[in-house]
């Protein structure tokens, strides 16, 4: 018989992603996350009290670059690396390796060599300008840092968006006088970071434990499942509250706790997939060809079983963001650094209701969680064989 070969070659992962992101909802979600990521990476360039360039009698200087922190630099370098890697289109193993080495090298270098001034006086540029000491100045689009409390303007506090004539605050100001828009842009980092890192930790633990449970089954599976059940019984939010009460609030602690309490979900998915895959003929044939365990687990089983985990992960990112927002809203989150949840908290602190403090951060949280859920739904549809029309 002549048998037509009618489809062109392409990997499964690529096909899934293409199908998932051919849906409009997923694209909207992706675009929103892209915008947030852009804000997160370029936050110091978008909202900063330090001008890009400043010309005084002492000469031309760039206070903004001088005040960049090591973290700002690392994020920038990583972003550029990712863009280069996407352009190069190398193998996934190479990408991960390159990203990690760049991360380590850049963090070591930047923490050794970059030392921003300890004492930061945000008001100095505005005062210099008023006193006529400045020849010319180029400011950031939003000329207020996240922690610039506008001390030079005296008693500031909650101000309506565009409520002042001499200053423009697009989203108003918060309790201690800082610009809300600037704080929201800087908070993007926390929102993205906590989502990705916490979910990353959970996925790593979940995939490894779940994979071992599924492949070896028997006693390993039984013990593993009991462990899963123990961890599933832990109420994440109350554990977080307890830890914050004991150890003070730290972003990294939050990431780790969310990570180690949410892995059982991923472990369950991977275990179920591996139990099924173990009996598949192609895995059996890999065993009968005498391939090493490493290859069977990571080359023949994991790529076939990882799809549901990715779906769960996109929902997981959303829920990690919510956890952080909830903690901050309860006043147990970060103290000085900006976060969306913490801003929401301020909206209801006093007797009067400050709508801009609720609307903008609340909207941002809503949209981000919504965007991740949209992408998760699209991925789920793409890997669902029942919804496939032709394959």
């Amino acid at each position, binding site marked *: 018989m002549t048998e037509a070969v009618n489809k062109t070659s392409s990997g499964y992962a690529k096909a899934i992603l293409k199908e998932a992101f051919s849906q409009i909802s997923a694209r909207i979600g992706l675009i929103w996350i892209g915008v947030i990521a852009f804000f997160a990476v370029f936050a110091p360039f978008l909202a900063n009290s330090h001008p890009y360039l400043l010309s005084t009698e002492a000469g031309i200087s760039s206070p903004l670059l001088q005040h960049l922190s090591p973290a700002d630099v690392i994020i920038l370098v990583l972003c550029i690396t990712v863009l280069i890697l996407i352009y190069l289109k190398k193998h996934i193993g190479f990408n991960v390796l390159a990203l990690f080495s760049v991360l380590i090298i850049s963090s070591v270098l930047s923490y050794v060599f970059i030392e921003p001034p300890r004492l930061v006086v945000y008001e100095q540029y505005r005062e210099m300008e008023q006193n006529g000491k400045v020849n010319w100045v180029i400011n950031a689009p939003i000329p207020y840092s996240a922690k610039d409390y506008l001390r030079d303007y005296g008693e500031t506090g909650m101000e309506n968006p565009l409520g002042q004539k001499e200053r423009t605050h697009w989203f108003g100001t918060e309790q201690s006088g800082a610009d809300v828009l600037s704080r929201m842009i800087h908070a993007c980092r926390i929102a993205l970071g906590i989502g990705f890192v916490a979910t990353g930790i959970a996925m790593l633990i979940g995939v490894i434990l779940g994979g071992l449970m599924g492949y070896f089954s028997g006693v390993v599976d039984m013990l593993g499942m009991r462990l899963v059940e123990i961890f599933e019984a832990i109420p994440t939010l109350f554990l977080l509250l307890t830890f914050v009460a004991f150890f003070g609030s730290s972003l990294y602690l939050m990431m780790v706790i969310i990570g180690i309490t949410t892995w059982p979900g991923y472990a369950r998915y991977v275990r179920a997939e591996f139990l099924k895959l173990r009996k598949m003929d192609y895995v059996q044939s890999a065993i009968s060809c005498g391939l090493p365990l490493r290859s069977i687990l990571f*080359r023949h089983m994991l790529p*076939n079983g990882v799809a549901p985990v990715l779906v769960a992960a996109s929902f997981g990112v959303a829920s990690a963001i919510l956890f952080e927002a909830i903690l901050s809203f309860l006043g147990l989150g970060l103290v000085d650094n900006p976060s969306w949840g913490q801003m929401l908290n301020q909206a209801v602190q006093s007797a009067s209701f400050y709508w801009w403090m609720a609307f903008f951060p609340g909207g941002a949280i809503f949209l981000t969680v919504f965007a991740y859920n949209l992408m998760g739904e699209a991925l789920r549809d793409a890997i669902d064989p029942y919804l496939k029309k032709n394959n």
Partner: protein
Amino acid sequence: MSKLFLKIDQLRTHLETGKKVVKAVEDVSLEINRGETFCLVGESGSGKSITALSIMKLLPASIASHPSGSIELMDENPISILDVKEDDMRDIRGSRIAMIFQEPMNSLNPVYTIGEQIIEALQIHQPELSDQQARIKAISALDDVQIPNPEQRIDEYPHRLSGGQRQRVMIAMALACEPELLIADEPTTALDVTVQAEILSLMKDLQRRNNMSILFITHDFGVVAQMAHKLAVMQLGKIVEQGEVQTVLKNPQHNYTKQLLAALPENLKQQHRADIQAEIKQSQAEQRDRDLIKIENLKVYFPIKKGVFRHTVDHVRAVDDVSLTIKQGEIMALVGESGCGKTTLGRALLRLEDTTEGAFYYNQHELTQLSQKQVKPYRQELQFIFQDPMSSLNPRLNIATTLIEPMKVHGIGNNKHERIVLAEQALEQVQLKPEFLWRYPHEFSGGQRQRIGIARSLVLNPKFIVCDEVTSALDVSVQAEILDILLKLRKDFGLTLLFITHNISVVEYISDKIAVMYKGKIVEKGDTDQVTSSPQHEYTKQLLAAVPRLH
């Protein structure tokens, strides 16, 4: 009342999937008389099931359309089925035209007893029946399909019945309302031959009693020869030939029909095979005396565990005390019905299943006592070809990776380039193009995948291959090609094969020796010709008698 019952005229069925229109049925015309069996034969995807579903109007209206043609029920006033409204169609389905499906395991609802399901069907079409009357009718329907103790069995759930019994219940359900036409879509494909023979004779019997027409859809010409009065051969949605069954089978006119008939294992050139055999016997005369595989009292038991502490209460004796020797260069066929342990035996030989007791010698090396690590060097020489070509290739890896990775592990070929050349050669040996190396499994048809599966075991230069039902998922013409490839490889490389199958005609074509397995034990073994012509054991006799023969 006229003799003619159903008339299909120039029927076309188009299915829309996305932007594509699949012309599933093209200009099909056929006539079915009362009390007659009409067989639709064709390979998978030829449109035979779609034709049947069109008659029942069971295709989803959103994707199926009939651009032209008509289906008419010949009453005093002919009813055009395509124009009947959905509500009225319900009165026709079941009471005038009934249908039974291929997979008896899935077509009964597991949460109702079989009695409830038959009674429901009865009362929908005959609402005047009281519960008591319906029950009596259901019991007699079960009695008709020869289910023992119908008074008791009527209250059982489907999971208590075997596959053959479930298919009987399906037939009882379909026949309970005394339809004038029964559409049977591959009703015996999923069943063992012995059960198939019983179901076929039952259907013939019921047909005679009720003067019912049967539209029988199948791919098996042996079944056609037994059942049909008339026959139509379908290819790519068209009927290429139809007529009286004996005329078509004895004297096929269309090329495709000739091809199909020639591809049947029993029609494949016996002479050609004899030549190859003689050649092999000559060239390997000295080697053939050597036992390559020796199985001694092998047992594979699966524990049945119960209770909180999962203690073993009993064993499933999948392979029970089997002894077998296979000589170098021989093809040994292992035959038996589903669940008799033949696949487990094959898997145990490759240490994919742990053995309970007994010994297995490969080239005088005992393998059952070795650890998985110690077995590794032997894995190269012992290979397995799997039944289902759809699941035996990793969908995420291209063919090159699938073929090259095992070579690398076993140190075949010095570098990547050399291995690619070897992989290309392997593909050529199974008659595939070398450029297929860079494609992914989903781009291939079932037959092509099965060949890739063969190529995968070939790249390791094996000495012994276990072929587990390698052709049972394939159409006859593809099956013939695969069998020829295997025979040729045996000739070229002196391979030894253990050929696991349930298809006797394939066995007769390909194998030198045969071992018949029944409930975990080997009940008869010997030369293929000798066993098939004069079987000794009761089960072998039954099995051979049940095989539907063309002539």
